[in-house]
């Protein structure tokens, strides 16, 4: 089966391991991800100023291309997913804005593109993915960290319960590892505040990691490159601020899927993780 795929900028650069491991794990269960031709950056974080139409231009062009391709697109990056879904919500609800943008851009977009996150896709094809599992990871306790962009606002994303989501736990369970829910799994990691107010972002990340640790997780799983960056990249700085901090590896969900599917260890992308998961995986007899 061929599926149209939108990687977005981050998956081409700093989150390359997310890109590579999704392509390889999907291929392992017979799904070929075909990149949307000539895609653009989605514009990143969705603007909340309602009088700003500029930020809708990139999403409209991307979604018009999706319509011309096969109508639906798989989007793994949580921010791209959020931005495209929110823009499409406006296109559906506000025909006036859609018309202005279509005329301005010379497009004829009808607001009917379907934007799908890998977790949703995996559950639509759960038997295939279950059959892909070749290795037992039941000793690995994975904290399911959602962050913001997959969940909120619920009425626009229609993804999962924003306060008590379960789709990631179901995913971890499906690939045979042990999901752990912890209270701060839906709390913000600090997002772009890391650039302008790092002290606030580091504090937010510290609280999340601590809460996960207190609930017995071995490692965290996420699908968002920004959450991954904030939670994985700064743990040395967090330890300097909070000497009680104990480092926790943070995986992209597709890295764990690569382990479960028995792909060669080079495809797990472990060298990408700033907090090395090697010792943990050896202890659990996975490496």
């Amino acid at each position, binding site marked *: 089966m061929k599926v149209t795929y939108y990687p*977005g*900028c*981050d998956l081409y*650069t*700093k*989150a390359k391991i997310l890109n590579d491991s999704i392509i390889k794990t999907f291929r392992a269960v017979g799904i070929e991800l075909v990149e949307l031709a000539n895609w653009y*950056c989605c*514009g*990143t*974080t969705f*603007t*909340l*100023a*309602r*009088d*700003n139409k500029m*930020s809708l231009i990139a999403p409209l062009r991307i979604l018009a291309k999706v319509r011309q391709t096969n109508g639906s697109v798989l989007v793994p*990056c949580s*921010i791209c997913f959020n931005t495209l879904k929110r823009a499409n919500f406006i296109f559906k609800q506000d025909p006036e804005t859609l018309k202005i943008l279509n005329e301005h851009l010379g497009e004829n977009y009808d607001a009917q593109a379907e934007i799908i996150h890998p977790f949703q896709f995996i559950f639509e094809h759960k038997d295939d993915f279950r059959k892909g599992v070749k290795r037992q990871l039941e000793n690995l306790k994975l904290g399911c960290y959602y962050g*913001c962009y997959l969940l*909120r*606002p*619920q009425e626009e994303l229609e993804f999962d319960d*924003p*306060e008590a989501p379960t789709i990631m736990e179901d995913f971890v369970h499906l690939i045979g590892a042990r999901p752990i829910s912890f209270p701060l799994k*839906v*709390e*913000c990691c*600090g*997002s*772009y*505040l*890391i*650039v*302008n*107010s*790092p*002290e*606030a*972002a580091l*504090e*937010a990340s510290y*609280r999340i990691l601590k809460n996960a640790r207190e609930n017995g997780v071995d490692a965290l799983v996420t699908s968002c*490159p*920004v959450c991954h*960056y904030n939670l994985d*990249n700064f743990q040395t700085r967090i330890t300097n601020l909070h000497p009680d901090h104990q480092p926790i590896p943070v995986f992209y969900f597709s890295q764990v899927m690569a382990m479960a599917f028995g792909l060669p260890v080079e495809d797990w992308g472990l060298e990408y993780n700033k907090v090395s998961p090697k010792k943990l995986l050896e202890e659990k007899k996975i490496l």
Partner: protein
Amino acid sequence: MRKLSRDEDFILRIQEISQQNIADCYQCGRCTAGCPFAEFMDEPPNRIIRYLQLGLKDEVLKAQGPWFCAACLVCETRCPRGVDIPRIMEAVRTIHLRSKEQLLDIDRIDKKILEEAHPLVLMSALYKYSY
């Protein structure tokens, strides 16, 4: 006693940018209680809204609170009155940014972050702190 003057144009401008009705808020404080960044804010979300209800433009524009809003939308999810607070925070920032105040200065960004950060993070920050 300090004299407070109500600035109607300012309220209308915020309501236009955010498409929110400031009067909907009944000051329960749930937004502030759940905000992960409230402790960093001089004026937390509910107080920004209260100042807006009172039309206190200077108080709102002086506040640093809106710059610590990560648009995480936890408060939007929990507000019993359906107020989309992050849109109001964005409207306050937008008014500053469109008057070219508080623009993110790239020279001020931590060098290590500038080198290592994902493009997504830098673009989001530039998006939120410029116009």
